[in-house]
């Protein structure tokens, strides 16, 4: 006991003597970081077909305003430079280059969209600038070997599909599955996840697959075909407009299989309401973030933080908009990473710290969902919780489930 104390004292003395020296040695910066400032770049479609996501950029700016008002990150103020790419990949390349070469940012954070991020991924990795917490559900951002400077954030579509497959294997082992999916990267990623998780059984369990293109006015035919194929589980990998159509059609042809709805379309206002509350009872889905409309979070400390933030820094934001919850959560994660970096604000250290998150909890994620990364795992969130539509809202049930296979 004594010797330990003495050792500690010796360390403390050494610390005092060497403090100025080591502090100097520790303060290392790459372009974009100084004693007083950290420059963070961002690319979001404020205009164009996906401009609804512009809200995310606004929320992120507001969150950094809050951080700066509270004294910054380890005393450094954040300068958030967010550019519009109008959801156009060539524009995203131009904006990424402008951020890195002209503005000199430390990293690019939460650039949005699978096509735009695909376009800049190679550039970012050649330049060795972090492309951190990409805003896209594609699974390809988790590839630390090929792309050590790129990392995703939200659960991938594949993770979500794994969870549905696990649920089906457990609850309905004799399922005859019919899948309706959108014919693009989103839909295909999902189907792949589903098949991977069902493993050997996928060939026998998935009885019918129907894909649709977004140009189709109606998907009624596909739904009818899936019913006629004799399926008793219906998985709807659809975007909101088509999700609502499918729910309605099921009710219309009086077909009541076990029904799954992708998280993308789990919005009550955007899908369930237009499809009808009556028709939506019992639908299954999964979530990883809290919903501001859900009364069960009224006394939740994380949700209280979120609402207090909105009131003070972003009063015009719509708290029911999932993009606001998203922007808040992902920015909180980044701030945590930058705090962990301490005075070593190099790009390599940012990636190192981002790949070293242990059981991090975020205000707006469901209780129990924790962020974990490692040098071989660049998928921060892979847990979700199942939920069932009951009455006029989603009811979470069961345990937190991991989207990783082999668990």
């Amino acid at each position, binding site marked *: 006991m004594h010797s330990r104390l003495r050792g500690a004292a010796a360390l403390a003395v050494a610390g005092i003597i060497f403090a100025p020296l080591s502090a100097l040695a520790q303060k290392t910066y790459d372009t974009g970081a100084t004693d007083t400032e950290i420059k963070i770049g961002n690319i979001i479609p*404020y*205009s*164009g*077909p996906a401009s609804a996501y*512009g809200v995310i*950029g*606004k929320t992120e700016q507001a969150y950094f305003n809050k951080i700066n008002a509270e004294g910054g990150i380890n005393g450094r103020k954040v300068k958030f430079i*967010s*550019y*519009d790419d*109008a*959801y*156009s*990949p*060539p524009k995203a*390349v*131009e904006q990424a*280059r*402008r951020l890195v*070469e*002209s503005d000199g940012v430390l990293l690019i954070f939460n650039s949005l969209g*699978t*096509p735009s991020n*695909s*376009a800049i*991924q*190679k*550039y970012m990795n050649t330049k060795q600038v972090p492309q951190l917490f990409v805003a896209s559900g594609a699974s390809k951002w988790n590839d630390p070997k090929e792309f050590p400077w790129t990392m995703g954030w939200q659960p991938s579509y594949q993770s979500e599909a794994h969870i549905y497959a696990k649920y089906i294997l457990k609850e309905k082992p004799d399922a005859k599955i019919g899948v309706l999916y959108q*014919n*693009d*990267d989103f839909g295909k990623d999902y189907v792949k996840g589903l098949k991977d998780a069902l493993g050997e059984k996928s060939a026998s369990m998935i009885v019918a697959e129907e894909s649709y*293109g977004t*140009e189709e006015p109606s998907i009624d035919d596909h739904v009818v075909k899936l019913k006629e194929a004799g399926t008793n589980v219906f998985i709807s990998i659809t975007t909101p407009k088509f999700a609502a159509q499918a729910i309605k059609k099921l009710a219309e042809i009086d077909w009541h299989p076990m029904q799954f709805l992708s998280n993308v379309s789990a919005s009550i206002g955007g899908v369930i309401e237009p499809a009808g509350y009556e028709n939506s009872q019992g639908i299954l889905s999964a979530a990883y973030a809290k919903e501001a409309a859900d009364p069960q979070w009224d006394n939740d400390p994380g949700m209280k933080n979120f609402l207090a933030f909105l009131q003070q820094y972003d009063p015009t934001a719509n708290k029911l908009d999932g993009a606001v919850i998203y922007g808040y959560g992902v920015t909180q994660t980044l701030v945590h990473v930058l705090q962990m970096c301490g005075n070593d604000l190099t790009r390599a250290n940012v990636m190192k710290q981002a790949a070293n998150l242990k059981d991090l909890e975020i205000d707006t994620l469901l209780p129990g969902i924790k962020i974990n990364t490692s040098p071989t795992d660049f998928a921060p969130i892979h847990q979700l919780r199942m939920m069932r539509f009951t009455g006029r809202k989603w009811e979470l049930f069961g345990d937190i489930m991991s989207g990783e296979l082999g668990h």
Partner: protein
Amino acid sequence: MSAAEDVVPTDQEGQAVEAVPKRAMTLGTGTSLVVLALLILTPLVVKSFVTFQMTQLLVYGLAVLALNILTGGSGQFSLGQSAFYAIGAYASAILIEQFNVNYALTIPVAGVLCFAVGFLFGQPALRLSGVYLALATFALATAMPQLLKLNFIEPWTGGVQGLVVDKPDAPFGLPMSQDTWLYYFTLAITIAVYVASVNLLRSRSGRALMAIRDNEIAASAMGVNVALYKTLAFGVSAGITGVAGALGAIVVQFVAPDSFTITLAIQLFLGMVVGGVGWLPGSFVGAAFIIFVPNMAESVSKGLSGAVFGVLLFLVIYLVPHGARQVAIASQQLIGKFRK
């Protein structure tokens, strides 16, 4: 004055495309040389990001030039240039990435392919004129991103995920960065295409095109094969757009269906109007407008960038309806006054 008289345009004013005499289509020799010298010196003094933007400017400039030949030369409208741009870009990307063809060789291939596609599309499109042709090409532009996503060509196109293209190094061990090399490479092709276009419009074929633009009936009465020349104009325009698309794919290092939406076609159209319809050097001024002005608008207001852009565009059209050409002529007259 009867109602019937109101709707019949009686003079040149009624025409959507103002006739441009062929001499007014280009810059003087002296000015051309100054511009050329500036373009060659630019990468030596600016950052690599600006070099990249300048390369993009040349690429879009070529695409606008192509449209200018079609609209300014033969008087046909097209809102489908993004489709030819996409074909050129994909041709180059697929050849480079899937078949390991040298990037420089993919450019003529893209040009020839797009010429063929444009020529074929021009056959039925010929029967249409004015707004109807614009609509037909509009349909082509709308269809293109979806066609590129088709399942059965996915092994080549990469589907919705697109294709990543490797950036070429400077050849023969030249001591310059990839960006600088690409700039000069693009500049060389741009100059070649520009000179060829100027010569085309000054040639017999060019005169035939302009005759068609000014009065189709009179042109055919003079013995001009209207159908042939109109399709040729379409083909040439598509071919040049394809070259621009191929260069674009190499410069941006990525192709995906979402890169070539109708927005691109409208941008090119906008570039042509701002640059001055029928004035070839204006194409590059128009390209600068569509690249830099959205960035300026964004720096004014993020939420209202579209509105700011609209106001700027409105100002340009209101103050200088003939675009950069009008500015050029005005400054020429001003210089002339000083000389006296």
